[in-house]
């Protein structure tokens, strides 16, 4: 009981802190916290695929970037499209892509799965890169409107922060709830032994397909938020670098823990901002940090504190 109270108080304290952030943090750091929150959702979708579904996605930026581009294009071309509709549209397009590609992906396993996701990612990336008339190619897309929400201006960093917090919070809650549903249990049984789950009579492919579609949807939402966060979208949102970044974020926090992606994206975003402002050789330090983390905390940072 005491332990539960302890967690509850930590939860209330961090919620209060999250609400107070715009008042206590300088503008620059509030921006960083917003980015961390958006990236946390993206990292969570990777973690859910890996930890709940046993799927190692090596091309996850596909859904993130697709959501970002789809929503940015929608805001650009559909006059009067509201903020929430744009975000939802980004999620839907990415979710649809997750569903279509999922039909091919559910048959694969392990390394072959990973490399096929990479192939899909690179194909879509190439389309985005080369289709200059629509996506702007390597010049990227900018100058899309940032609609107000219920009369509240989203151009204010604090308001945008609160909105991101709300949307990401809802998405994370759905992810958490999902693991508690019967479908979540089926996925866990598939992960621990796919053959057995098949013999019991679960529809393995369908369960995986649902997870892929859902996580595509959420990754698309985080991408759409990211587009509005940057007020600009470039091919770096959909390239291989983004696909590896999300893996680093999910790993650093700990793939086996629900709050791992949030912690991981926090550390990752902070470190890359801090180190790149510190020295030109930041990749050297970054690389060393990766090596040290893997050696000292093979299950991620949270893995040090909790023994499974």
């Amino acid at each position, binding site marked *: 009981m005491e332990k539960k109270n302890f967690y509850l108080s930590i939860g209330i304290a961090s919620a209060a802190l999250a609400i107070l952030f715009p008042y206590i943090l300088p503008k620059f750091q509030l921006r960083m916290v917003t980015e961390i929150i958006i990236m946390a959702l993206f990292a969570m979708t990777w973690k859910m695929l*890996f930890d709940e579904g046993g799927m*190692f996605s090596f091309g996850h930026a596909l859904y993130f970037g697709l959501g970002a581009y789809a929503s940015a294009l929608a805001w650009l071309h559909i006059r009067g499209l509201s903020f929430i509709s744009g975000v939802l549209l980004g999620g839907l397009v990415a979710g649809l892509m997750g569903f279509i590609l999922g039909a*091919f992906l559910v*048959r*694969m*396993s392990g*390394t*072959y799965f*990973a*490399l*096929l996701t*990479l*192939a*899909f990612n*690179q*194909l879509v990336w*190439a389309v985005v890169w*080369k289709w200059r008339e629509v996506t702007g190619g390597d010049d990227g897309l900018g100058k899309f409107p940032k609609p107000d929400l219920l009369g509240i201006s989203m151009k204010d960093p604090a308001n945008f922060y609160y909105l991101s917090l709300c949307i990401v919070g809802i998405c994370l809650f759905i992810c958490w709830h999902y693991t508690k549903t019967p479908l979540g249990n089926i996925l866990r049984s598939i992960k621990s032994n796919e053959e057995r789950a098949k013999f019991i009579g679960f529809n393995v492919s369908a369960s995986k397909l649902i997870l892929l579609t859902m996580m595509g949807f959420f990754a698309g939402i985080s991408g759409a938020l990211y587009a509005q966060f940057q007020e600009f979208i470039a091919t770096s949102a959909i390239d*291989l670098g983004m696909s*590896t970044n999300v*893996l*680093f974020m999910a*790993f650093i926090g700990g*793939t086996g823990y629900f709050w791992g992606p949030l912690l991981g994206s926090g550390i990752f975003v902070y470190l890359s901002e801090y180190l790149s402002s510190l020295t030109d*050789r930041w*990749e*050297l330090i*970054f*690389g*060393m*940090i*990766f*090596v040290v*983390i*893997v*050696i000292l905390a*093979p*299950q991620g940072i949270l893995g040090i504190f909790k023994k499974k």
Partner: protein
Amino acid sequence: MESFLNTFIIQALHGIVYGCLLFLVSAGLTLVFGMMNVLNIAHVSFYMLGAYFSYQMLKIVGNFWIGLVVCPILVGLLGILMERLLLRRVHAAGHVQEFVITFGILFVINELVKWIWGTAPLRVPIPPILSGSVTILGNVYPAYRLFILFFSILILGFLFYVLMKTRLGITVRAAVADRDMVSALGTNTHRVFMLVMGLGAWLAGLAGVIAGPFISTYPGMALEILTDCFIVTVTGGLGSLLGAVVASFLIGQLSSFGILFIPRLAIVFAFLLMAVILIIKPSGLFGEKA
């Protein structure tokens, strides 16, 4: 018509030579990743190190052939060191951990290379004996590229010999089939892992030395070949040397003719090939288990 045929032959030769280079890098990856299941992103760093070591060796000793012998061995030793000190500890944890740590190592090696040799491309001259050109069906073709072709065939033969005839090769193949059983029979699987890692790094280093005079040596060369050689390893089927040969050849031709006919989409052909092959045959061309 004549000129079209000539272009065709030259382009096919280009493709074969690039395929050979790709094979040399991927062969090591097939051993390490395909057979031993160690996800080693830093493999391409060994390829780059081979090229830079060879450049340095040429500067000091002035002889390409000494570099060809010495540099891959140095790179191979680095590979053994990396396995012994770092990878051995995380292999049990899984692919994510291996991915992150070897990517970290790739970052470190990349930055160190930039630090020591700078970011500008370095030119390694072609050794004098091979600096001439050969006439093939009326086309003039650089002799060094043909050397790459013959050297790759030599290495392929050597690898088949090692895998099929030597004690190490037999142990490796047995360990691929059932690692626990091999370990239980009294083989030191740790040592086998270490040797295979060394062999893989040696091959990558060799490819780097060979590549030096062919493409310029620069810090981006590791990342440039990274996706291609993973595509080869997986498209051919994990752990299949024959698959790596066929896939390298296909990718080489694809990229060569792709640039000729549809330059706009040349970058995606390799991925398209992989996607199509994996969708039709989920375990790659010559892979056994999915």
